[in-house]
């Protein structure tokens, strides 16, 4: 299902990289400059950044290129979408009409906004929860640490997709629930990686100094531990976004996605798949194109960031 993308690139390797970064960090300030230079020279990643920027712009401002909106039904087209609803530059319906006689271009624009938002917000929630949880466990250590990590073990054996379905069923469907639900199912790996890193940062001089002068625990975690984890967090978050987008598409396939007239890539794709053999292939083609391109962009950017930040690969 959904972890298929991010997973292979994050676990062991990300942990290793974080270790490497950590060693560098304390040596000098040049790490970020170095990393930037390396990232800029990574062609695939740079192309992806540009493509992704275009998609984001498209999702934010795309509707201003069109005189239509995403919900008005054109009654003359309805019922004859196959013939009359084809994509056309002349009549301003660049992507044609959807099955319900609405302008597909505007639906893709709006769907992109939702999918990107779900991806990014979901990843941010996962990263926030995972980082705080992992850093707390690692920093406090001892019994608290082992209980917290046991809990993570327990959560890991839960069939998540199912919990998510139950949550959406119980709480009713709302975009917030989708954000939170998707985000909350993905923080476990993050918390493990962060905990590992925290354990090694904990014994550094600057942390020990802070403890000695009596800075409160939460403050040490927020001020000293978390900032030092920034690199690994950024990489992880980038790789998490496509996972979130894929999860959302599965949820939409189940019919538990966002409410009409709003839509998302997942909803558009699953509608498109249904009618792909009925001569309206553009219903599938346009949203799938944006979906695939975006996932790849995040994917290459994540890879690029990791390579750039990981000094070992030099």
């Amino acid at each position, binding site marked *: 299902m959904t972890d298929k*993308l991010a997973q292979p690139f994050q676990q*062991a*390797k990300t942990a290793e990289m974080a270790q490497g970064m950590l060693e560098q960090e304390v040596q000098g300030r040049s790490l970020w400059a170095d990393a930037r230079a390396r990232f800029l020279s990574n062609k695939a990643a740079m192309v992806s950044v540009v493509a992704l920027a275009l998609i984001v712009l498209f999702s934010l401002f795309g509707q201003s290129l069109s005189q239509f909106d995403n919900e008005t039904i054109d009654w003359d087209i309805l019922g004859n979408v196959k013939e009359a609803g084809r994509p056309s530059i002349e009549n301003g319906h660049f992507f044609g009409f959807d099955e319900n006689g609405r302008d597909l271009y505007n639906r893709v624009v709006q769907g992109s906004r939702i999918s990107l938002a779900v991806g990014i917000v979901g990843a941010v929630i996962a990263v926030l929860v995972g980082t705080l949880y992992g850093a707390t466990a690692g920093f406090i250590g001892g019994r608290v640490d082992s209980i917290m990590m046991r809990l993570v073990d*327990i959560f890991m*054996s839960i069939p998540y997709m199912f919990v998510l379905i139950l949550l959406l069923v119980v709480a009713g469907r709302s975009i917030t629930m989708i954000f939170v639900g998707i985000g909350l199912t993905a923080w476990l790996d993050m918390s493990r990686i962060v905990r590992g890193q925290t354990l090694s940062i904990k014994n550094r001089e600057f942390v020990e100094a802070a403890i000695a002068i009596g800075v409160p625990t939460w403050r040490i975690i927020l001020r000293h531990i978390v900032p030092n984890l920034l690199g690994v967090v950024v990489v992880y978050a980038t790789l998490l976004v496509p996972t979130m987008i894929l999860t959302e*598409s599965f949820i939409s396939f*189940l019919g538990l996605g966002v409410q009409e007239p709003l839509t998302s890539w997942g909803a558009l794709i699953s509608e498109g*798949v249904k009618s792909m053999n009925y001569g309206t292939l553009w219903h599938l083609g346009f949203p799938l194109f944006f979906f695939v391109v975006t996932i790849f962009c995040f994917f290459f950017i994540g890879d690029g960031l990791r390579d750039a930040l990981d000094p070992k690969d030099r």
Partner: protein
Amino acid sequence: MLNFIIRRVAVAIPTLIILLIASFWLMQTAPGGPFTSERPLPPQVLANIEAKYGLDQPILKQLWDYVIGIITQFDFGPSYKYKDRSVNDIIAQGFPVTLTYGIISFVIAIVVGGILGMSAAIRQNSMLDYFAVGVTIGAQVLPNFVMAPILILIFTLWLGWLPGGGWNGGQWQYLVMPVIALSTSYMASIARLTRSSMLEVLRSNFIRTARAKGLPDRTIIWRHALKPSLLPVISYLGPAFVGMVTGSFIIDSIFGTGGIGYFYVNSAFNRDYAVMMGLTILLGSMTIMFNMVVDILYAWIDPKIRL
């Protein structure tokens, strides 16, 4: 090792109990019940039915009876929706199906993905490498609810080679499309993982030393490079397994294979409490067991790790 297994099992039991309670509670909170229908049942009829299934008891008692039933008689209760069958029947019929196509997909994903990744790494920047990368990139992003209907269109409608769904006792023709739809994305992930970790291992010092000693390539790869480059692949197996369980819902619902994935997701929609909990326990314990096996494998390959 024995110690490790005992510790893991000791954690597994409370985990399963928590899982059970949480899902039971969530189900109870969901609006509507197993017998909510378009035509509301007369109160009298509803009362009969609830009495029959013990749903008129206090919630804690229901939960208790359920757990006792499992422990003493291995009885996971009745299905409220499919009244001809118990949860045990559903598992007995559906689980082997899911397991069959799941294991085949898993093995194919690992073997084909591994070989593809390794060959790509060994011949880095060759046509083979580009081909492998290209194929895996494509396979990885196509959600399987898109791929499955496309497969049916191609193989059933256009080419007429394969039946468009069903299980039929697991004859190979019925297995091909479910396995392709389920395994491709994992195969692609594994190929990419193997490729990158193999590349890294091949660049490492001990391989350089081996090369310097003049060992033949084949020996270097099979004897020295293979094992360490499998590590990230192994750590990926756990999540891949869980992903396949969820993916099986799509397989079952599109190909009509009759596996448990479909029962599982639909039990939530049907409020079929016993089915949902029975399958949660089953899949939860499978996941725990699988993660344990993965950890053991990991330790076996990497002696630095202690269990």
